[in-house]
């Protein structure tokens, strides 16, 4: 099988045609063709109707909630994730290996399981929700609950992005700062934070992107009231259940395009981060 536009390096290793052919065919069938249907379908739709669906009041409320809650969750994750990564890299305490392994739990635990579990904890009868109930504060079925679920789902991204960067930090830089009279806090703010900034931003963007599309863990705790606690992926789901495929497609195209822009941004950030580290290290 020959792939004309690909230039093969002179190599004695066999299998280029076979593996490249299979890779491209499988990628095309499983990913590219299905994804392109979304844009094809949109192209066949009336522009005005499309615009109307994307900018309807209910859709705008859903975007606001999705972007807002995802941003807040990603901020919480950035601060707490930096703390967790720092503690895991720098300090020793009993049970550290176990804690380190548990950080990946949101990747491993099915989202629906996480969703019902978080709801049971933060509802008015739940372990944590009960503590807030006397003050008339509801967590589950409100925006706070949505933010908590999105924080859970994005947690590993920041920690796992920062851990290797913190581990590779050259202690000599901190020693130099300290020997030149900087306090520990000054060293942290002026030396460490600028060094880990690109990786921190990457972690933030990854957590934000994941939260934006998240469905399973949020849908149980969200309450799902149109205009108030309805996230964008849920609105797409609702449109599908109403057999409003055009509406669902329009919303999906908008959200997917945002995701692609984010992905592009993340790639840029990662490139910057790598250069930054090479120059700094």
């Amino acid at each position: 099988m020959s792939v004309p536009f690909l230039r093969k390096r002179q190599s004695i290793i066999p299998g280029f045609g076979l593996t490249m052919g299979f890779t491209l065919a499988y990628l095309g069938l499983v990913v590219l063709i299905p994804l392109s249907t979304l844009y094809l379908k949109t192209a066949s739709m009336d522009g005005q109707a499309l615009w109307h669906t994307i900018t309807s009041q209910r859709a705008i409320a859903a975007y606001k909630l999705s972007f807002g809650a995802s941003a807040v969750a990603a901020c919480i994750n950035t601060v707490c994730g930096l703390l967790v990564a720092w503690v895991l890299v720098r300090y020793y305490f009993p049970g550290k290996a176990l804690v380190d392994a548990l950080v990946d739990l949101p990747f491993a635990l099915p989202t629906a399981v996480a969703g019902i579990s978080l709801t049971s904890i933060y509802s008015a009868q739940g372990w944590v929700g009960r503590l807030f109930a006397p003050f008339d504060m509801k967590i589950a079925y409100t925006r706070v609950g949505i933010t908590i679920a999105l924080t859970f789902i994005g947690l590993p991204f920041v920690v796992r992005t920062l851990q290797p960067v913190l581990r590779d930090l050259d202690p000599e830089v901190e020693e130099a700062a300290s020997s030149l009279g900087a306090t520990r806090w000054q060293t942290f703010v002026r030396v460490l934070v600028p060094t880990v900034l690109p990786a921190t931003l990457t972690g933030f963007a990854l957590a934000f992107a994941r939260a934006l599309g998240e469905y399973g863990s949020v849908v149980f705790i969200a309450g799902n009231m149109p205009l108030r606690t309805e996230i964008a992926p849920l609105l797409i789901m609702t449109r599908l259940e109403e057999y409003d495929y055009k509406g669902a497609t329009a919303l999906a195209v908008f959200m997917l395009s945002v995701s692609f822009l984010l992905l592009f941004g993340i790639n840029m950030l990662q490139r910057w981060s790598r250069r930054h580290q090479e120059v700094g290290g």
Partner: protein
Amino acid sequence: MAMENNATDTPAPIPAVIPQGPPVKIGEPLFVRCLLIGLALLFLALFLFLPLVAVFSNALSEGLGVFLTAIADPYARAAVRLTLMTTAIAVPLNIVFGISASWAITKFDFFGKSFLVSLIDLPFTVSPVISGVIFVLLFGAHGFLGPWLSAHDIKIIFATPGIILVTVFVTFPFVARELIPLMQSHGSDDEEAALSLGASGWQTFFRITVPNIRWGLLYGIILCTARALGEFGAVSVVSGHIRGKTITMPLHVEILYNEYNFASAFAVASLLAMVSLVTLALKKFAEWKGQKEARDHAAYVYQQES
């Protein structure tokens, strides 16, 4: 508070020569450390540990009897069967793809390589719900292929094939993205040596490449399997929710939960949670083995060179 304490800390002495003893102390005072560790653990306890404990506690809240009944329920067993079958089809397909893609990408040079790598990562950026939507648009009754499929009496959406397809889609990058950096770091020297000594391509692959990448491969398979077993959003879109037929384990959990059958919902959920704990343990093991082998390899190369 932390600042004050740090300010009174005397700066570490400047080492005139490379210190022989322990390195210069640049850490935080003990109580700041304890405070930071405490805060980090509190955050993790609230967000990670508590949800995990809640699954098992809720599962057993109405006694072992209810737990066992929920698991032995015929609908639950049908859901387990469908989930296992879906995983058993989706994961091997993506393993073959992952190996093939990483071979093509790391063993040869060609134009557009980094673009191809980004395309492979694409499914990770697509929201689970949207992953479902694209397959409905392609194979659904009003989709591009819908009329043709219904004319030939083939059902994909709201049937098992659709569930398998979306699962393949959402788990698509896992194996490839583990293997590509690993095979890149290994290079092609070992394979080239084997080939020039007369080994065939397949022999080289099975005897040289596979042993080199086995822990990374296992790592990718574990992540792929975990996601395939637990996928909810995408499967929910294409499933059609026919009890006993197109209900996977996560969907079964949802149905039980929405029927206020909480103990049963958590019982089935606890099975999935147990699988995820095994996943974490296996993942840690594969990571540890992979790192150990990389270290041993580096030490061996160093020995050979010196």
